[in-house]
């Protein structure tokens, strides 16, 4: 969950509108009965125009970092080989605030894109594929036919082989020129200090600037829904287990109370109060709960270590991945708390019954 929030942008703003723009006739006569078919859309320069203005508007919301990106396609031409790549124009200083790519740099840096505006940062896997090295020049060809030699000023490695082989970064202004799309970006990537607010902030942004803003919750809706279902299943199973354990403790204490009826009568005839008797059996239940919890925590920790040690090599990934295991202290506290709490409740019921024993009833039966 945290991994999901940390690695993806909290909000992504794209050069799209959520609703299709209305046709001219419809705009003029919303109630009109005519719909014109086959109207040819106006050819527009796609992209987020005035992105600088939008950017400062977004940043003015506070607790927010945003970076403009112009993403497009390009062809690398080197030593007679051609390779299609994704080329993203970025502002390095902004990009660093919203993306982890800076941490994945294995040579050079993103900042070099500012120093050398002809610079380009590519994945190490792509460099290997094309036998390129740091500092070497390649020819970049845009779909519109612009050609420009660029120099490799940085290499990154994220571990995701597809990404490492196809993603490249260059200076935003340079990419705008190369793709013939001056002064536009097509994506604004946003990170929030408080990721949980993404949904409402996305709505605010969309309302202010009009472009489609997708929060990470919306983007990973499927995954989040799965997580919700998983949680429901997990808590039902844990609840059921707890219930069974409660019945176990209830049974044990009930039996003990029954066995000790005579002793309860003796203690009460001596002058012990009902509350004293209750306390004895609830304490016994609590001790069971506590020792059971300790045992359970120990076993749980061992199992968690076993799970964390499992190595997974997902396809399309170069590195080894471990199952994410949450080691937070709170979960142990909650688990133990619930276990001891339910043990006490399970013990309290028979304890109360036991404490109501009237010594005279037992004495009458015995003599």
């Amino acid at each position, binding site marked *: 969950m945290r991994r999901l929030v940390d690695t993806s942008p909290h909000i992504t703003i794209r050069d799209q509108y959520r609703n299709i723009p209305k046709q001219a006739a419809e705009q003029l006569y919303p109630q009109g009965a005519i719909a014109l078919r086959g109207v040819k859309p106006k050819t527009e320069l796609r992209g987020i125009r005035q992105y600088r203005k939008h950017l400062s508007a977004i940043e003015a919301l506070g607790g927010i970092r945003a970076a403009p990106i112009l993403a497009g396609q390009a062809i690398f031409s080197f030593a007679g080989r051609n390779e299609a790549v994704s080329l993203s124009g970025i502002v390095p200083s902004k990009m660093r605030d919203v993306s982890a790519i800076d941490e994945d740099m294995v040579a050079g840096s993103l900042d070099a894109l500012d120093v050398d505006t002809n610079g380009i940062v590519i994945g190490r896997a792509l460099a290997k594929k094309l036998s390129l090295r740091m500092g070497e020049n390649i020819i970049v060809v845009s779909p519109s036919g612009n050609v420009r030699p660029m120099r490799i000023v940085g290499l990154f490695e994220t571990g995701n082989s597809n990404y490492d082989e196809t993603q490249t970064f260059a200076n935003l202004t340079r990419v705008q020129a190369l793709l013939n799309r001056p002064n536009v970006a097509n994506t604004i990537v946003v990170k929030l200090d408080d990721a949980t607010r993404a949904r409402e902030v996305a709505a605010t942004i969309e309302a202010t600037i009009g472009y489609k803003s997708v929060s990470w919750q919306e983007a990973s809706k499927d995954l989040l829904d799965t997580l919700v279902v998983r949680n429901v299943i997990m808590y039902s199973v844990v609840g059921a287990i707890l219930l069974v354990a409660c019945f176990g403790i209830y049974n044990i204490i009930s039996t003990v109370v029954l066995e000790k009826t*005579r*002793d309860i*009568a*003796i*203690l*009460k*005839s*001596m*002058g*012990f*109060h*009902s*509350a*004293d008797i209750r306390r004895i059996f609830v304490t016994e239940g609590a001790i069971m709960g506590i020792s059971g919890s300790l045992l359970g925590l120990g076993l749980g920790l061992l199992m968690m270590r076993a799970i964390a040690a499992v190595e997974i090599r997902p396809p399309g990934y170069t590195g080894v991945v471990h199952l994410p295991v949450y080691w937070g202290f709170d979960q142990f506290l909650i688990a133990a708390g619930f276990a001891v709490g339910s043990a006490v409740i399970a013990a309290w019921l028979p304890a109360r019954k036991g404490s109501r024993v009237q*010594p*005279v009833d037992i*004495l*009458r039966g*015995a*003599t």
Partner: protein
Amino acid sequence: MSVLVAEKLGRTLDGEVPVTLVQDADVTIERGEFVVIRGPSGSGKSSLLYLLGLLDKPTSGRLLIDGKDTVGFDDDERADVRLRKIGFVFQFHFLLGEFSALDNVRMPMRKLGQLGESAQVERAQALLDSLGLADQAHKRPSQLSGGQRQRVAIARALANDPLLILADEPTGALDTKSSENVRLILRELASREGRSIVAVTHDPGFASAADRQVQIVDGKIVA
């Protein structure tokens, strides 16, 4: 002031056919008095004793213990009177099987909480000593003979220095020698220590040691 005064004390079990266990019982017990309750089996001797010892709630009449009217006391208040003023000895010893003789004797002191732990042990040991059980203090009830168990029960009844000791056939399960021993002990407790003793018995020899006898037939005191 009398240790115990019962006036028109009655106990009826309700049900489809109400059963009267005890009817209009007038009993007065003075300090240092050794009283024996006698009567045929099923006449209500035990029932009367439970009423006098606040183990059972009377359905009619008054009961004063040490001058205080106990009618209307709730369970906890009655438990407190039992703890401080009354000691019980039953036909079957009623000791806690998982505790040593010493710990059984200490149990009422622990609940009362007036003595520290070492003082409790000391007093419990002294009580056992005085009843000839000096060497049996650390044995469990199951390791003791019937007579020894009954003496442990007497020691426990004395734990909180009660005014009144109530005994239900304390010698009923004992052989002649042990019976005589228990009888002497109770007699001494009354004569020397000034405790009041009320004992139910079938044993004529035991009854002859008492200061006074109360006869009960069909739940009614006849003499």
